[in-house]
């Protein structure tokens, strides 16, 4: 790590003011940022520790949803009785991520902002438009096993690695942010993460100094909550592909469907057309296949990740099959 000044924020206003200064990063659990700082991929001159701020706790909201403080640890969120009961897809996604130790450290805010696991981003000797804008993308034409099949650009083909974010996307969560002028704004998950385009260094809708204060969940969705993650080993590995699903079936047909996909794009991927095509259709194999066809029509492999296309197809079909089985007995 290169030297930095360490500042412990005493209030969110102070954190936001400090956070606006150049070369400054907030630090929460530290599990992603310190990893990147040790490798000198991220080299802040100042670290603002936000962990002493009052941003914890999971509370019920007036509309029947939940407000999750930005500092709630991934392990606490996964174990929260309301999340286990009403938002099982979120518990499942959290439990599928990282390890027990890391989940005890990782925070809700930090998890959303974790950086890509692209090996070329991690190797400072390689060209990477995300790490050093304008240098090119060494991943294109390189080893592309963990790269995107949706929404990639000629400037970046990296994926977002978070499991939690995929569940939050399926649940239509919103991110609450405190801006440096003290205002609060809500960013829907749909708009929180960006596609790479020609500015892959810009990953979210946050502006400098914006502090995540909470994540808001809408009232619970009934139906099967499933998170299926496919990875190289049974535990403690990032997703090759993942599917977060909240599916309600009535009289043998899909009544409500929310699907989000991880490991396949620069952000949690969601496709409204696929969900619309399923609603009203019988929950049978022909329907599952048609949904997978529609989803994968625009998928593009990069060579080493071509396997993700059939893998995502099979994972989606497996998830829909499981949902149908669960609700039609």
């Amino acid at each position, binding site marked *: *790590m290169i*030297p*930095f*000044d*360490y500042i412990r924020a005493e209030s969110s206003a102070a954190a936001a003011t400090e956070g606006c200064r150049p070369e400054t990063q907030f*630090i929460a*659990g*530290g*599990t992603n940022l*310190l*990893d990147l700082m*040790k490798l000198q991929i991220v080299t802040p001159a100042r*670290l603002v*520790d936000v*962990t002493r701020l009052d941003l914890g706790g999971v509370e019920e909201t007036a509309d029947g949803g939940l407000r999750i403080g930005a500092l709630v640890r991934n*392990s606490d969120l*996964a*174990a929260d*009785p309301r999340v*286990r*009961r009403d938002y*099982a897809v979120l*518990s*499942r996604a959290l*439990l*599928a991520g*990282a*390890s*027990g*130790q*890391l989940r*005890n*450290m990782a925070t809700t805010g930090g998890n959303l902002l974790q950086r890509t696991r692209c090996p070329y981003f991690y190797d400072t000797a390689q060209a990477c438009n995300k790490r050093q804008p304008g240098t090119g993308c060494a991943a294109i034409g390189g080893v592309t096993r963990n790269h995107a099949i949706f929404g990639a650009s000629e400037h970046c083909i990296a994926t977002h690695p978070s499991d939690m974010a995929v569940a939050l996307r399926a649940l239509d969560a919103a991110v609450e942010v405190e801006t440096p002028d003290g205002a609060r704004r809500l960013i829907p998950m749909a708009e929180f993460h960006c596609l790479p385009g020609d500015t892959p260094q810009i990953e979210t809708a946050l502006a400098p100094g914006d502090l995540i204060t909470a994540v808001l969940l809408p009232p619970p969705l009934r139906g099967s909550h499933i998170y299926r993650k496919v990875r190289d080993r*049974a*535990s*403690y590995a990032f997703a090759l592909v993942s599917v977060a699903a909240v599916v309600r079936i009535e009289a043998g047909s899909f009544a409500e469907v929310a699907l989000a996909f991880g490991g396949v794009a620069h952000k949690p991927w969601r496709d409204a057309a696929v969900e619309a095509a399923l609603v009203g259709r019988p929950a049978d194999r022909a329907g599952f296949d048609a949904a997978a066809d529609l989803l994968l029509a625009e998928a593009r492999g990069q060579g080493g990740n071509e396997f993700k296309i059939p893998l995502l197809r099979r994972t989606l079909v497996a998830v829909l099959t499981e949902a149908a089985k669960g609700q039609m007995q």
Partner: protein
Amino acid sequence: MKTRLSINGETHEIDADARTTLLDALRHHIGLTGTKKGCDHGQCGACTVIVDGRRVNSCLTLACMQDGAQITTVEGLGAPGALSPMQAAFLAQDGFQCGYCTPGQICSATAMLEEIRAGWPSHVSADLEAPARLSVEEISERMSGNLCRCACYPNIVEAITQVGEAETVAEAAE
């Protein structure tokens, strides 16, 4: 930068560069070398210690961020002649070969049993709302953050099972 840490019940004040991880503070500033550095990137679990009752990777947190925290290392769990139940079980079940991962395994397993007692579910729990169970599958999943290069996993699972079952019996008797 001055930081006050309570380690194994003793208060230590260190004056270290802000870059010092909790792991390096323990080993280099305080001289507690039981905690090991495997990868320094959160990928192996050798550095696991218990902070305010929770197992964490000491390589991925800064000592200064832990100012005021209560930290337990493998040295604090027990001592020669007065081993903790988990330390004794690792010996009884031969839960190691080279021993490098062992302090991290023991700290992790000790805190993991508390997580099961608190009812936390895991990735392999069939029912998220049912009480957490102790099984080989559950132990393997919950301990996946601790790698063992000597592959002593079967005996590690045996050791944890022994302690977990003894605790369950003790609780039932109360």
